[in-house]
């Protein structure tokens, strides 16, 4: 600026300081120079403005997507490819630019598309990623900026911060109870209180009791390690000696849960959480880490659990229309990356002993209905059984997977009625032979003996309900051992150890109970728990609990404890009792040999236990006797004091009653008058005959 000024001054001096003519020439020149500088200034200003609005690099790139797995084509098919791409991708917005990089005359296999706005690019990524163009080409769509993001991840691996170790103590603490008491959970006061008791034949011992521990009900994990409680925001798992909170899973509005048999995963269902983009209706969680492993859609929770687990927790499967989807853990991905197409599949279930799925398909034109047993993961069909004129099938596995019973309802040709067959698959024998048991009545209930080869059936129509017991013998025959008729029963409850069972007439049948020993099919005891709604065996098969839940009946809410033989031990009334669940036991750590040894020496062990029982019995009576003595003494003392005061008040009493002593019933004997009255009762004329 200064120089310019000097120059101007110089010009001025040069111009005006000298002859006029020079000025005349210099003045327009000076003017031009001024103008020039002014223009420069203005231009600079404008330039700065324009520079400010210069498009940033990022703006353009946010709207760009990269599409991978695009077919590599030569120039002759390029036009067609471009049309196809355009058709697919213009759905998400306006494509402003497209770039198909080439190499050696073919397209490289990936392309760049630019949209009018970044939101459109996002749409494209969301919806077109994973689009299957054909068998060999599945599009992968990403935002261009994402590449940038991943490129800038540091090469240095930062070890994640170490979380402090949360010690929950001995998670199996309850199993170490020296008296081998099993625990059970009780929900009462209409859900306000939940308590955990240790089961003792004399009376339950409280282990833990909390108000509002759960908002609806509780569930134990399959091996008894965790107690799950339900809340509006999700579920919580509790365990260890003091039932501390182990883990929490956030799933708004959760209503149902299921555990994997190995207790590694828990599946939660909430009817609220499903959105199209983000399947959240069913979530599978890893219990130990608390991580969400995978989410799934769910149309309805009608048949919970939707996902059925294999016995070892390696697989879980679900059935949708014409499809069976089997997933493996821990990847949570589909086995062999695809679902099985089984047209018309109606139902399936896992063997509780092996990784075998049984499923059935109804009749389809000429193809008869059939039950198929499929081995996993090989997907080999190890047995197929054709069935004719089928109305419905139900699959019942024996607890160890030794047998499968398929209850088949059929309408034989030429008849109107429905007849039921039991198709018994012998899983442990070569080529899985099938035997059939025909049933003439309608079936009310069916149950396998948990670790044996017997099953029980309730059939007939009320009031003529029969209970039949069958034995599946090794020689290929299925023998009817015994049938009890005119039973008041609608449910079968086997002891988890087998042999013993309870036939119960729950709810509408007013709680009739029959305790049966199936080794010789005798009725050990017939009893009743009026209006019983549930029957639960303890995990050892020693005790049975029958209960009247407040959820089904509003009075007499209580749970009764019986021995396995049907002897009533306790009646526990609980205000608005709702639910009792035994805590499951983990599988035994003893080997089969060790168990054999114990059974051999059982007499020795039972002596020790009997002695212990006797001691505790007498201790209990002694406690009770002491308690009673103390109560009586206290009462006596109170009565004595009261009597004293009473005596002291005698004069007042006499005064109030005008001198008449009424303290004892016979206080006024002197005042009593005795009167003898004669009544005519009877007249009898006795002829004496001739005197």
């Amino acid at each position, binding site marked *: 600026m200064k120089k310019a000024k000097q120059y101007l001054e110089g010009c001025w001096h040069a111009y005006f300081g000298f002859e006029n003519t020079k000025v005349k020439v210099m003045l327009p020149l000076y003017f031009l120079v001024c103008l020039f500088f002014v223009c420069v200034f203005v231009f600079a200003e404008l330039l700065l403005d324009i520079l400010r609005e210069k498009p940033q690099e990022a703006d353009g790139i946010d709207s760009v997507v990269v599409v991978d797995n695009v077919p590599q084509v030569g120039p002759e098919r390029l036009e067609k490819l471009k049309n196809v791409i355009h058709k697919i991708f213009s759905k998400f917005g306006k494509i402003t630019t497209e770039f198909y990089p080439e190499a050696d005359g073919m397209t490289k296999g990936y392309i760049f598309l630019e949209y009018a706005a970044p939101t459109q690019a996002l749409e494209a990524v969301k919806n077109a990623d994973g689009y299957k163009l054909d068998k060999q080409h599945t599009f992968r769509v990403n935002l261009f900026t994402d590449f940038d993001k991943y490129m800038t991840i540091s090469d240095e691996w930062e070890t994640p911060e170490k979380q402090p170790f949360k010690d929950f103590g001995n998670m199996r603490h309850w199993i170490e109870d020296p008296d081998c008491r099993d625990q059970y959970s009780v929900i009462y006061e209409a859900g306000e209180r939940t308590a955990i008791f240790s089961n003792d034949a004399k009376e339950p011992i409280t282990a833990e009791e909390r108000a509002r521990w759960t908002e609806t009900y509780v569930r134990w994990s399959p091996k008894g390690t965790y107690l799950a409680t339900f809340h509006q925001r999700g579920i919580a798992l509790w365990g260890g000696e003091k039932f501390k909170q182990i883990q929490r899973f956030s799933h708004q509005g959760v209503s149902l849960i299921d555990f994997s048999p190995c207790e590694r995963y828990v599946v939660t269902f909430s009817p609220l959480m499903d959105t199209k983009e983000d399947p959240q209706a069913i979530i599978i969680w890893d219990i130990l880490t608390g991580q969400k492993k995978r989410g799934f859609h769910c149309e309805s929770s009608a048949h919970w659990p939707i996902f059925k687990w294999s016995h070892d927790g390696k697989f879980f499967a679900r059935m949708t229309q014409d499809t069976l989807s089997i997933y493996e853990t821990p990847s949570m991905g589909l086995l062999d990356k695809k679902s099985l197409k089984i047209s018309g599949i109606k139902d399936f279930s896992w063997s509780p002993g092996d990784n075998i799925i049984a499923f059935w398909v109804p009749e389809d034109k000429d193809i008869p209905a059939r039950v198929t047993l499929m081995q996993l993961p090989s997907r080999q069909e190890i047995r197929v059984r054709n069935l004719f004129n089928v109305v419905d099938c139900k699959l019942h596995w024996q607890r160890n997977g030794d047998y499968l019973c398929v209850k088949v309802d059929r309408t034989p040709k030429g008849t109107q009625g429905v007849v039921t067959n039991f198709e018994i698959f012998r899983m442990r024998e070569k080529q899985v032979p099938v035997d059939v048991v025909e049933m003439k009545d309608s079936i009310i209930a069916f149950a396998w003996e948990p670790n044996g080869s017997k099953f029980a059936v309730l059939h007939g129509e009320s009031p003529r309900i029969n209970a039949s017991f069958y034995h599946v013998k090794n020689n290929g025959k299925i023998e009817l051992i015994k049938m009890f008729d005119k039973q008041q029963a609608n449910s079968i409850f086997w002891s988890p150890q087998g042999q013993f069972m309870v036939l119960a007439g729950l709810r509408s049948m007013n709680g009739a109970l029959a305790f049966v020993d199936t080794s010789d099919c005798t009725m050990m005891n017939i009893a009743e728990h009026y209006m019983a709604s549930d029957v639960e065996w303890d995990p050892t098969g020693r005790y049975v609990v029958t209960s009247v839940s407040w959820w089904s009946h509003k*009075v007499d809410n209580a749970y009764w404890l019986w021995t396995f033989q049907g002897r009533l031990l306790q009646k526990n009334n609980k205000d608005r009792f709702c639910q009792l669940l035994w805590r499951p036991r983990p599988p035994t750590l003893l080997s089969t040999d060790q168990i054999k040894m114990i059974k051999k020496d059982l007499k020795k062990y039972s002596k020790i236990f009997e002695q212990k029982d006797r001691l505790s019995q007498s201790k209990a009576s002694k406690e*009770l006797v002491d308690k009673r003595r103390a109560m*009586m003494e206290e*009462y*006596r003392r*109170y009565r004595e004091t009261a009597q004293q*005061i*009473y005596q002291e008040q005698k004069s007042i*009493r006499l005064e109030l009653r005008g001198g008449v002593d*009424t303290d004892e019933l016979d206080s006024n004997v002197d005042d009593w008058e005795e009167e003898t009255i004669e009544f005519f009762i009877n007249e009898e004329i006795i002829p004496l005959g001739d005197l």
Partner: protein
Amino acid sequence: MRAVWCVDCDWDTKNVLTGSADNSCRLWDCETGKQLALLNTNSAVRTCGFDFSGNIIMFSTDKQMGYQCYLNFFDLRDPQQIEDNQPYLSIPCNDAKITSAVWGPLGEFVNAGHENGEINQFSAKSGEILKKAKEHSRQINDIQTSVDLTMFISASKDNTAKLFDSTSLEHIKTFKTERPVNSAAISPIMDHVVMGGGQEAMEVTTTSTRIGKFEARFFHAAYEEEFGRVKGHFGPINCVAFHPDGKSYSSGGEDGYVRIHYFDPQYFDFELEA
């Protein structure tokens, strides 16, 4: 004119006092049956009784149709009170109405049980509340005294009956059941109490309608343990009472029957191990 809710006679059975849902309390001559006095009230008379001397009567009226619950006292030695229907003392009960009441041992106060489970001791002279006890959580259905009036037992809808000292209102014992207790009585000669109950009338059909499922239950007064039950009623038991000689008891029920039971000799010899 309508249901008679309460009846009491004085100590030498000269007079009988009755209270009814026809809004009146009447005094009768026991021998002749002649009505001696009529006291009209604004609402049903729920409970009534003579004091120890037989000179003072009390009765309580229900909270009905806008009228409060009152506990009224009349002195029979002053005929003017009866003529003018002016009690010498009338205590209003603002909150829960009185459902059952008994006199204290010397006629100085009345122990009243309320709809909310409270028991209040009202002075018969001044009307003030001398003592309070809040042990029951639901309505008190019945209160009966021991034969010497030193204690009373309250039967409540909260499935328990409780034993109290009449003067101090000290809570002495509790007897627990699973059904609402409608009535309870104290044996005059043994350390026993008897209780009778059942559910709400509307829930009756949901219980076992098998013969005689409604039982009178006997508890040991000191141990608070049940030791016996007597079946026989077809419906909930509304009232129980021991005979003054303690050798029998009677019970009245919703089924319309009054049952009288005489105790076997074993009853008097029975003892719980202690």
